[in-house]
């Protein structure tokens, strides 16, 4: 067995360590509680590995520079919280349409607006999917522990490189700010995916937005490597040039949506526990999952037949598995630190096949295991 480093580490710090392990070399952002530690640690650690950190004038610029960094060839990340996440939306849409890989961390705090800046929340879950205008592809993951924050940050980079799309890490103040034991894997234990690049002999034939046979996304050149390509946020053809043609637009948009929906199995991660004989399932994610696990264990100790489903990938949604659960007539309870967001998607997927219950909380405090337990007993 490897002699891994065991450390006490904050969630936000693990996010940076994960990013560095994944090969992040560029960070641009603007500080905001409770994500600020991510910027701070990046400013300290990036130069040590030859990477770049820049504090921009605002979140819009932070997102823009992150995309710029990625186009110039570096794995890039930015981090923020609710108000900044709202500001970044326009450029997130740009990254989605122009297919620029990058990672956006949203350490969720209680909103709306300035809200309760230091209080935990899971209020941006729907915004992650719908925050920018127009249809666009979305991948979002949400970690439940410091270790998982490390792992999922690596995963975010991998997915973004593989699918040429912005990927969101939906942290929350609970996980972002707590310190927990973590074993940092050795470099060679970590799977890293780097964007596919065109080869130098393609210089003359390269089309920046053509998907080659057998590939999921177009090969991606970096600025400065000899490929004179064009990148735009307008609808564009295979060369990357603006086009008003209806078919071109349709093809482009459906391709970037399908690259995600066709690969749900590769992207979606979840975990289950206590499911065999469960009559109801608590479906939870992020920091609230920890309360849910505690509650389910307590419930089991009381003899209640409760299962636990951890949604790791938030978007796209794990439709197949949740439909199975619903068909098994297991009731579903979704506790979350908002007034019921993810539960809406669960309701939609379940389509009446089983009961779906919501437990929301928005007073700035975490949901306690006892609150979930009480709801479990009410539902069962």
């Amino acid at each position, binding site marked *: 067995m490897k002699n891994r480093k065991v450390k006490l580490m904050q969630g936000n710090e693990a996010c940076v360590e994960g990013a560095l392990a994944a090969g992040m*070399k*560029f960070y*641009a952002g603007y500080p905001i509680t409770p994500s600020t530690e991510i910027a701070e640690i990046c400013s300290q650690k990036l*130069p*040590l*590995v*030859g990477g*770049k950190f*820049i504090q*921009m*004038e*605002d979140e*819009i*610029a932070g997102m*823009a*520079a*992150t*995309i*710029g*960094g*990625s*186009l*110039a*060839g*570096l794995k*890039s990340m930015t981090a923020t919280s609710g108000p900044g996440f709202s500001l970044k939306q*326009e*450029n997130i849409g*740009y990254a989605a349409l122009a297919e620029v890989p990058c990672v956006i961390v949203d350490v969720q705090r209680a909103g709306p607006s300035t809200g309760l800046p230091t209080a935990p929340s899971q209020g941006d879950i729907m915004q992650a999917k719908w925050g920018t205008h127009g249809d666009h592809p979305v991948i979002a993951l949400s970690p439940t522990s410091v270790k998982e924050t490390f792992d999922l940050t690596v995963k975010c980079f991998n997915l973004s490189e593989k699918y040429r799309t912005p990927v969101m890490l939906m942290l929350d103040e609970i996980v972002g700010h707590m310190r927990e034991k973590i074993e940092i894997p050795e470099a060679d234990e970590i799977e890293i995916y780097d964007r596919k690049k065109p080869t130098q002999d393609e210089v003359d034939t390269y089309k920046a937005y053509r998907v080659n046979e057998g590939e999921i996304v177009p090969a991606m050149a*970096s*600025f*400065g*490597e*000899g*490929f*004179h*390509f*064009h*990148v*735009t*946020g*307008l609808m564009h053809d295979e060369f990357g*040039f*603006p086009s008003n043609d209806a078919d071109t637009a349709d093809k482009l948009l459906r391709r970037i949506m399908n690259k995600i929906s066709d690969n749900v199995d590769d992207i979606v991660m979840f975990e289950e526990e206590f499911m065999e004989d469960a009559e109801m399932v608590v479906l939870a994610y992020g920091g609230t999952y920890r309360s849910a696990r505690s509650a389910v264990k307590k419930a089991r100790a009381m003899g209640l037949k409760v299962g636990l489903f951890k949604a790791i990938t938030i978007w796209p949604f794990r439709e197949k598995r949740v439909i199975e659960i619903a068909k098994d007539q297991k009731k579903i309870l979704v506790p979350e630190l908002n007034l019921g967001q993810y539960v809406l998607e669960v309701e939609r997927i379940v389509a009446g096949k089983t009961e779906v219950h919501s437990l929301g909380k928005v007073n700035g405090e975490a949901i306690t295991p006892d609150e979930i337990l009480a709801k479990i007993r009410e539902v069962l």
Partner: protein
Amino acid sequence: MSSQLIKNNFRMDRLPHIWCPGCGHGIIMRSMAQAIQNLGLDKQKVCIVSGIGCSSRAPGYMDFNTLHTTHGRALAFATGVKLANPELKVIVVTGDGDCSAIGGNHLIHTARRNIDITTIVFNNNIYGMTGGQYSPTTPTNDFGTTAPFGNIDKAFDICKLVDGAGATYVARGTAYHVNQLTKIIEKAISNIGFSLVDAISICPTYYGRKNKKGTAVQMMNYLKDSAVDTKVAEKLPPEKLENKFFIGEFKNTTEPEYTEEYMKIIKKYQKER
């Protein structure tokens, strides 16, 4: 068929461009290409970045690494590109609206950081792309579709603005004074630090029409007659300067450049290579 300059620097299959007859943007874009060619820059290492607007369509025609971003954000994207790969010569093409309305904050901050980016403002004193609304450089009392009673805003002098913000090279040229403009752009690109060229363009379609400035030719004549070289201006009496604007170099200094300073930190502290 077309000239060698065009063939060498443009994407021939994208031309002719979408700009209106007599639009000054085409003249300025050619001047940029001329400057780049005169400097003998390595085309692979030139990256041209723009925002949104008529002017911001320029990079799509130019045969370099080109990036057409979101409205107002060109300089922020460009900052990412430049810092990530300081080897690139980054040139930003932007409009008066793009860079001084929605993009004003990025403009002053990029100037402040003195990062090695050259900004060419295609300044036509109007929002051309959206059909003629007044912009932050529309003169007071002029008309725009959103200033039907005459504009009560005061106009930015973009050169003064970026000077106050910290740019190290600042100059102005026009679509009429093309050779001078090309020289200025050359010097702007050569400056290691943030450079801005306020390139006065003409928009006969909207600014011209709304303000009864006549044809493209008449607007070109206005540029010819109203622009006074700063060097000359110093020697002229005030009455000769009424209703004139200044062209030429306003600032040309050297200060620490952002990416170079960053590389010093990396050199000093980098552990892994």
